[in-house]
C-alpha cells in the first residue's frame, strides 16, 4: 500500500492563557489517501476546525499557539515548514472552502480578478484572457450558466449559493491534491446546500482531489464521505468506514449523537438524552481495517 497523501500523528495543540497553556487537541491521528473523501465530524468546540487550520498552516504561526506532533503531506513534514513555504502550498497542492462564502471572497474585487489571482498561483505568467477563459470553464463545471455575468460581478451582487459555487470552482481550479472543506454549505438553504454539495462531489470526482470534509452535520457526512472520524473534546473517539459508522456505531458518544438527530421517518423525539457523560470518555473505537498506517520513515517519533 502506498503512503497516504496526508498523515497526522499525535497532533497536539495548546493555546497560551494567563493560567498557562490549555491543550485543546490531545493527540489526533488521521490519514487520507489520494482521491479519498474523509470526514471529521464533531460538535462546536471539539477541535475539528483547528485541525483543518493547522493542516492549512493558518494557525500555528499565530502567537500564543503551541503545536506538536506530525503532519505529513505528500511526503513533506508540514509542521517543519516555514510560513512562506506554506503560502506556496496553499492554492496549488492544497486548497480550502469555508463555511461562509461571502466573507471568504474579497468584497472590492470582481470574481474575475479573484479567479485570476488563484490561477496565477499555479501558472505564474498566465495572461488575462487565458485566465478569464479558464475561469469561465471552471464556473461551467459548477453549473454556472452565465459565467461572463458572474465573472464581472462583485460578491455582494451574487447570492450565497452562487458565491459558494464560485469558491468551490476556485478551490478546485488548480486541481489540488487535497481539498479542505470546512462546513461547506452550512450557511445555505437546504435545497441550495444539497445542490451545491452534489456539484462539489461531482467536481471532486472529476479532478480526483482528496477531501477532508469538516462538518457537524451527520447526514451530510453520511452522504459524502468514504470514511469518518468522530472527534469529541480534542480526541478522536471513533474511526470507521461510513457504512459501518452509521449501521454499527460503537462509541457511546457517536451513539448519542446519532440518537439525538431528529429523524424524518418520524420516530418522535428521543426520550432520555445526555449532553455530556463520563461514558463519552471511553477509549476510542477503531473499526477493523481503519488502523492508522505507520509514519513515513524519518518522521517516526
Amino acid at each position: 500500500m502506498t503512503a497516504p497523501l496526508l498523515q497526522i500523528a499525535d497532533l497536539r495543540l495548546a493555546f497560551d492563557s494567563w493560567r498557562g497553556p490549555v491543550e485543546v487537541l490531545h493527540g489526533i491521528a488521521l490519514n487520507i489517501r489520494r482521491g479519498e473523501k474523509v470526514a471529521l465530524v464533531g460538535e462546536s468546540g471539539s477541535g475539528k476546525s483547528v485541525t483543518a487550520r493547522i493542516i492549512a498552516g493558518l494557525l500555528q504561526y499565530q502567537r500564543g499557539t503551541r503545536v506538536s506532533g506530525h503532519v505529513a503531506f505528500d511526503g513533506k513534514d508540514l509542521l517543519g515548514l516555514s510560513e512562506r513555504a506554506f503560502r506556496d502550498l496553499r492554492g496549488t497542492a492544497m486548497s480550502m472552502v469555508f463555511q461562509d462564502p461571502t466573507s471568504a471572497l474579497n468584497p472590492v474585487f470582481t470574481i474575475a480578478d479573484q479567479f485570476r489571482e488563484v490561477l496565477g498561483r499555479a501558472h505564474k505568467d498566465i495572461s488575462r484572457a487565458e485566465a478569464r477563459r479558464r475561469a469561465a470553464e471552471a464556473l461551467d463545471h459548477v453549473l454556472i450558466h452565465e459565467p461572463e455575468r458572474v465573472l464581472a460581478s462583485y460578491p455582494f451582487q451574487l447570492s450565497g449559493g452562487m458565491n459558494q459555487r464560485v469558491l468551490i470552482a476556485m478551490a478546485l481550479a488548480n486541481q489540488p491534491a487535497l481539498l479542505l472543506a470546512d462546513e461547506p454549505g452550512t450557511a445555505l438553504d437546504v435545497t441550495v446546500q444539497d445542490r451545491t454539495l452534489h456539484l462539489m462531489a461531482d467536481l471532486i470526482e472529476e479532478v480526483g482531489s482528496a477531501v477532508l470534509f469538516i462538518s457537524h452535520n451527520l447526514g451530510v457526512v453520511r452522504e459524502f464521505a468514504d470514511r469518518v472520524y468522530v472527534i469529541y473534546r480534542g480526541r478522536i473517539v471513533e474511526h470507521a468506514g461510513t457504512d459501518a459508522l452509521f449501521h454499527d456505531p460503537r462509541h457511546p458518544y457517536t451513539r448519542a449523537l446519532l440518537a439525538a438527530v431528529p429523524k424524518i421517518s418520524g420516530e418522535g423525539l428521543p426520550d432520555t438524552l445526555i449532553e455530556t457523560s463520563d461514558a463519552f470518555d471511553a477509549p476510542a473505537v477503531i473499526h477493523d481495517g481503519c488502523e492508522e498506517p505507520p509514519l513515513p520513515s524519518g518522521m517516526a517519533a
Partner: protein
Amino acid sequence: MSGPILSFETVSKTFRVNGQDVHALADVDLSIEAGECHAIVGESGSGKTTLGNLALGIHAPSSGAIRFEGAMLPAKRPLALKRRIQLVQQNPLSSLNPKRRIGASLRLPLEVHGLVHGRAQRRERIAKLLVEVGLEPGHAERAPSSLSGGQRQRVAIARALACEPDLIVLDEPTSALDVLVQARVLRLLADLRQRRGLTYLFITHDLAVVRNLADRVSVFERGRLVESGRVAEIFANPQHAYTARLIASIPVVTDDEAAVRSAASERADTMENAA
C-alpha cells in the same frame, strides 16, 4: 383543541425597499388551533419570520385581518394582549441583555405585567421559572456570558413563560445549538407545551425537527403559502413540488429516513416534470 387561537385572513405584507415594493407575504389564509404546535417552514426570504412578526404585532399587515381568539387584533396592542403572545428567538446571546443578571432579565416581564407583588414573591417566581426550564434557582445570579448556549436558550424560554402566555412564537429556537443540546431543548419545549397547554407557532427551516415536534405544518415559498396540513401526511404525501423538494434535500442518517427522502425525491421529479 378548541377552535383557532390565531387566524390570518387574506393577510399581505409589503415592504418598500429602495423605492420598490417587496411582497413579503401575499394573501395568506392560515389558522392556528389552540394547543397545537404549528410549524411554519420555508427557505430564507419565504416570509416565515414576517409571519411571526405579524403575530407578535411587530408589524401590522398591509391588508387583511389577524384575529386572536376570534377578535380582530388592533394595530396598537394593549399590554394585556401583548402578554399573551410571546417570542423565543434563535440566538439567546443577542436576545438576552449581556449586562443583566439572569434574574433581572426574568424580573422585567413579571413587573411590566404586574404578575408579582413584593420581593419574596418575585424571587420565588423567578426560582420556579428557572426550575421549570431545567435550570437551578442559583442561575438567577449569573450573567448570560457565564452560561452555555443551551442554558441561555432555556433562560429565553423562561422569560417567555414568565408572562404566562397562551401562544409562543418560536423563531428557529434550536438552530444555533449543537445536536445533543438541541435534542434536550426540543424535549423541554414539547414537555412545556403539554404541561402548560401552550400553542406554538414554530418557525424553522429544519423539516426534521418539524417532523418530530409539530402537529401541523405550513410551507411557504416566496411569501406564498404553498401547502398546509398534518405533518405525517405532508411527509408521506407532499402535494406540492416545492415541499417534496424540501423533504428530498434533508440530510439523513438512517436507512428508514433515506427511504422517506428518496420517495420525496421521486415525487419532486415527477411533479417538476409535469409542471
